[in-house]
């Protein structure tokens, strides 16, 4: 059992304050949804948690159990058990998924084990094996990119995964497969999932235990799964008025 605890997280990019004191706490096996309109800073939250160097952290803390993640470079956060599934994964020409996974998993794992895990994961989410050889995210469709991210999640088995807008660019079948795989990871190895989205359709497969409303750089309200439905009906106007 692990916990991910975010307290008073403040960050800026390009001279603009985006995160203005985020508090969020979650445990292994839980699914937390962070919902907010476009431009509210949701993706910034994802990048700051994962340790992107272009974002300047102004204050606060992010602890994975006893470990302060804000002190660590991105790769050490990942090795500590944090994973970011990106909304727009970066193209890395000439580097295949296989090359990446061979060095991203601890070197004690042997190549054949990783190979087997990759093939198994590809099968689970209906991802062609040809993609294992192709350059990362180069000439992939939106759906293929999300499957690519999900496959990595399956092989790397993180303790907590931040899933940023997994529903964008996905058709219905692909969304169902990918969100079912994330849901399964929360059961099979007790992964915690922080699901960032502005639509609730992802929740058909991936049921949130907790829903956070994110607006104006902080969490405005926290509730159960029914809060997602309420947002679907009424939108974010209420918070926009409060912040306006």
């Amino acid at each position, binding site marked *: 059992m692990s916990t991910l605890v975010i307290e008073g997280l403040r960050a800026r990019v390009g001279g603009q304050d985006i995160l203005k004191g985020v508090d969020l706490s979650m445990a292994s096996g839980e699914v937390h949804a962070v919902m907010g309109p476009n431009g509210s800073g949701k993706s910034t939250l994802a990048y700051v948690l994962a340790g992107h160097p272009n974002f300047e952290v102004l204050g606060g803390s992010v602890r994975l159990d006893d470990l302060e993640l804000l002190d660590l470079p991105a*790769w050490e956060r990942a090795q500590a058990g944090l994973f970011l599934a990106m909304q727009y*994964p*970066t193209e*890395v020409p*000439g580097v295949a998924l296989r090359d*990446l996974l061979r*060095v*991203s998993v601890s070197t004690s794992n042997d190549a054949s084990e990783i190979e087997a895990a990759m093939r198994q994961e590809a099968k689970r989410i209906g991802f062609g094996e040809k993609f294992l050889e192709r350059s990362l995210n180069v000439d992939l469709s939106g759906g293929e990119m999300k499957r690519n991210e999900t496959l*990595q999640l399956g092989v790397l088995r993180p303790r907590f995964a931040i899933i940023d807008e997994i529903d964008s660019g996905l058709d219905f079948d692909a969304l169902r497969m990918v969100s079912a795989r994330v849901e399964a990871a929360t059961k099979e190895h007790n992964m915690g999932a922080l699901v960032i989205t502005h639509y609730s359709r992802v929740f058909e497969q991936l049921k949130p235990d907790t829903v956070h409303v994110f607006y104006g750089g902080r969490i405005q309200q926290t509730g159960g799964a029914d809060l997602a439905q309420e947002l679907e009906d009424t939108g974010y106007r209420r918070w926009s008025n409060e912040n306006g």
Partner: protein
Amino acid sequence: MADFSTDAARALAGPVWLSDRRAYAAAEFASMPPPDATDEEWRYSAIQEFDLSEFALLSDVRGAEATPSGMGDNVLGDAGAVIRTANGRISSIEVDDELAAAGVYVGPLAASGQGSAQLGAVSADATDYFTVLNDAFAVEPLLIHVPAGVVLRKPIVVTHHLSGNRGAAFPRLVVHVGADAQAEVLDYHTSAQGSLLACPVTELDVASAGRLSYLNVQQLGTETWQFSSHLARAERDASLTASTAAFGGGYARTRSDVRLVGRGANCDLLALYFGDGNQGLDFRTYQDHVAPDTTSNLLYKGVVSDAARSIYTGLIRVRPEARGTNAFQTNRNLKLGDKAWVESVPNLEIENNDVRCSHASAVGPVDTEQQFYLESRGVRSSEAERLIVAGFLEEVLESLPVAAVRETLRHQIDAKLSQHVEHVEHVELDELVENTELGGG
């Protein structure tokens, strides 16, 4: 010490026509002013530090390795013919019976019936200080001739190795591919440590509808000066790949000229290079569209680390008659560290309106987003950089001819990256120690 005189050129062994040719070139050379850094074509180069008089023509093959180290055994195993030279002289020739039976010639140019007609057939229109020097002092020019209609399935491999302090060698290779013939040639250059001078000239001559894929690999010692010229001519509907992989040399200049003289000819120019330490890698390209409906496509990708320098300057020229030309030129560079230095200068000179031309160049560090993407999956920073750099070069590598040598090239890239990573980690460690000391004080 140096004797690059007419008498010295005439004294080299060979038939009368070759001796006359050498003497003529040596006399011409004597009248040429040495290149100067103020000349546009020598801009950014290290020519002002070069002194020809420090070198003497290598004449001794004793002790010279016949096979360059580092080349995978599979490359030679896969070859249809292998010529090895040491210090500019042939040390061995092996040719498959199949090639010989098809009339393919692989050997000393002077001993072939058609040598006098083929030597200089391409280079005559592209002479400069160092090609003329090569004309005068190429001790044993080589010829690969593939007769019309002959299609070779296996590559022909030529290796050159130089050793001996203050020695100079002028390897000369002429490749002639007949009409509708097809060949693949690997030209592999190595040298020992110590101050050496290599001035190779390669002539690539592709007849109508002929197909030639040429790869030059340069893995010279880090104190060797290289002034290399690859000069090509493509006739009607001919297809040529002229490619280079450059890793070695102290200052290593490679000039690649392609003239598309027959309608419908096309050429791919490819290069990958990786300089580190204090190396200087200098590339000058010329895509000369003489005939209509010709195509040339250039992609040069390079990496420099430490205090290394790289230079790319290229010119696309479209002559007035060359309507329907397609000509493209792309040079991309990764700069690892603040001390590395890159210059990239693409140029166009277009004298016909019915053309499609483009050029692009880029110089920059490893992309932050790519680095973050890999790191966010738990790949340590140095390893992420290594993957990105190798991936960057892979685009060219997987397009190079002579597939059997790609693994060798990957190892060379990997070796350079390992040195870079070790170097960076040492620096980081030193900084850490310094900080600790400061902190402790």
